[in-house]
């Protein structure tokens, strides 16, 4: 199959790749660009560990082809930290111990970040739970993750808070 040119922005940096058009977004990120923070955990787009943001929207990296995001802005977990400062979601995860083995954590944090960008003031815990419904976690039982997201939503990590 003929390779195609892909130009996209990942974590505020422009990249150009010449790849097989069958390449999944998660494969382009991990294997071609070295962003190993994003993981893979299934072949049925069920687990969510490959979640990244595409133009700010949470997307499973295994469910889109890399060439489909040509010209778009991708954010992976590596792109959340800015100038050595953790994103509030990351800080909240640390404070709440909202991870254990950590394999689902990158995808979970991306889903949480995208959810809060869209819904900065969730009306209750169930809304938060629905926001991360697409992400499986085998270790935590989700509740610490919900607490972390809730803390961010309640403004605990606001500048000057």
């Amino acid at each position, binding site marked *: 199959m003929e390779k195609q040119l892909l130009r996209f922005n990942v974590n505020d940096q422009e990249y150009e790749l010449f790849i097989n058009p069958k390449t999944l977004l998660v494969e382009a990120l991990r294997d071609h660009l070295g*962003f*190993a*923070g*994003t*993981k*893979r*955990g*299934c*072949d*049925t787009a*069920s*687990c969510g*560990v490959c979640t990244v943001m595409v133009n700010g929207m949470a997307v499973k990296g295994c469910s889109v082809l890399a060439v489909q995001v040509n010209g778009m802005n991708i954010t*992976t*977990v*590596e792109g*959340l*930290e800015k100038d050595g400062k*953790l994103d509030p979601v*990351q800080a909240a*995860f*640390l*404070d*709440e*111990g909202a*991870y*254990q*083995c*950590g*394999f*689902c*954590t*990158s995808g979970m*944090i991306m889903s949480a970040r995208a959810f809060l960008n869209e819904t900065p003031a969730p009306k209750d815990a*169930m809304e*938060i*739970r*629905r926001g*991360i*419904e697409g*992400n*499986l*976690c*085998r*270790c*935590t*039982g*989700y*509740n*610490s*993750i*919900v607490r972390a997201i809730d803390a961010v939503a309640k403004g605990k990590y606001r500048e000057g808070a």
Partner: protein
Amino acid sequence: MTANKYSVLNTRVHNVDGYAKVTGRATYTFDVKLPGMLYGKILRSPHPHARIISIDPTEALKLPGVKAVVTGKDTLGVKQGIWRRYPELCDEQILTIEKVRYIGEPVAAVAAITEEIAEQALDLIDVLYEVLPFVDDPMEAIKKEAPMIHEGVERNVNVTRHIEWGDVEEAFEEAEYVREDWFKLGGQAHMCMETRATVASYTSDKKLTVYTSTQSPYYHQALLAGVLGLRESDIRVIAHYVGGGFGGKFELDASQFCASVLSMKLSKPVKIVFTREEDFIATKRRTPMFYYVRTGVKKDGTFCAREARVFTNGGAYTGMGATALYLTGFFHSFPYKWKAYRYDGYRVYTNSLPSSSMRGFGAPQAMFCSEQQIDWIAADLGLDMIEIRRKNAHTTGYEVPGQATIGSCGLGQCLDRIEEWIKARGTLPKNRAIGISAAGFMTGGIFNWFDSPYSFSSAVVTINYDGVVELHVGAQDIGQGSNTTLAMICAEALGVKLENIKVHSGDTDHCPADLGAWGSRQTLMAGNAVKMAAEDAKKQLLEFASAKFGYNIIYDLDIKDNWVHNVARPERGMHYADLVKEALRGKDGQRIIGRGHYTPHRKGMISPAYSYMVQAVEAEIDAETGKLSIIHCTTAHDCGQPINTLGLIGQLEGAASMAVGYGCLENMPVEDGKVMNPNLVDYKIIRAPNMPECEIIEIDTFEPEGPYGAKEAGEGLTNPTAAALGNAIFHATGLRMKQAPIMPEMIVNAFKEKKKEGGTP
């Protein structure tokens, strides 16, 4: 709750690996890439039982990019197993040579320059099978006419276990009420987020480096040495970050074995990562069981006698199955005092995926039967469900005859607090009820079935010039937070702040041997080793402080929060960092090194210590659809002394999510030897919207055998939930659910049966 008398223990701290995990910097075996690395894929048997006549790799080897194909004939053919002390239980070659015994069993492995080419090559390997009659049901496998799965194993029964005390017959005569019930317990998949994964790199100086997702680097080092004909010390196992284990990652699996064999053939690194489907069909799962229980009690609820008979579906190979068979029978007596008890367990080979160990190790199955039957007995006799348990509960100092001495037990307080909690919930709406289950669990095992010559746990503490402590442990962090827990114990014992501790684990080249993360052993066993090492180092440091201060001999010195001081006059002292520098000079530039180790001696048949808990599950049942909503889950929990506060909460909530799955979600049907739902669409694990709020009521006791009185928290917590859920269903609807997981169809059918019979089932 009493004020915390410790500086570091039982405080909320950031997990020492947290920063790496939340920033995507943690490197799992899944991420490992080495120069010149090849990709491996495994060819698996499509038949549940067949003889291998021939394997022809010719066409596969012709495919451009394919570097090697190996079969069992390219290996030493060693029949290995984790119960190394008992060769008859070492029955698995992994790359099997003569016969396949389950669908998915490896018969060949390919290494190629890409994963895609390796996958294509599998189709080109020509395997000739002579299909044999198979049997995937233990009830059929045990019949005279059933095919023999392993040569010489009569009736396919390869392990039997027997536990008995008292005179069971006499005790049943004394009983005033007897109840017997039959149960069917399903299997369960570990379903770690990171599937089995290994990168093996052999170099022609006969050294092998293995990156693998493991719960015990030491076990894998030793097991690989045994099957590859290498010295243990020439094998380095590295596991810096592991994406979950839950009991499925401490036995040798095909990713480690095949990657190593291929790498040894090619002297190149080979990476094998299981697909999610492979992880479902070809790894060892929780052991499915059939349980018969007969229990005799007095009319006032005093327990007299119990006899249990269990047949387990062992699958094709033994693995840790012998342990699960014993523990299920042992914990089936927990946590109560029985005048007489008899358990007979039988493990049956079948042509299905092997069953082995999974968090809880036979106890979740045991509790589902025991705790539900106790509720049914209480209901039959008109007794209170808390009172009947209180009457018979274990107490500190109790001796389980011939089996164990209970060093600490907070069960009574757990029952009291849950009773209060239930009262406070008040009257519940229709079709909603609270069910409880008590449980107790082991804190590591005493039995050396692995036949290790090393201490069960070891630790080394080395103090640098700047006061930072290099803590080397063999204990493996698989997400449960052992790195953090052990760092906390080290900091507390040495008297320094947590930020001074740097943990080294997950590398057999640099860390002492440790049996690893299973049986909920590490906080106690590795914790004791760490405490000993830290105290050794502290003692050496304080020698220099004593000399410096020249206090009267009656005064003690100690270190707390980085402050070295006179215990009687704590304002008098010096900074820890300054003492370290002086000690270093005093020792001619040599760092202080402290050593510690722990191996249980004379601690009974099972474990040096037992955790206790009582869990209350509030659930609502939809009579129309049979669907369950779990509203709330509250656990009164005795783990002696909590060490890692956030870790403990995480273990409680995480265990509950897994146990709820066992109770009502994770159905794993196997038909004709085939796993019917080997993917995450059809195998249902709990998602965030369905997870109930979990509350923990901490009951502090003090376990003499544990570091600072600590004992396990994490595996025991998977034990009660399925039973508590069953009891909630019973109290809400009167239905007695005798099969786990409890699927909606079962509830609907049970309602129909009840209507037909016009009364209680």
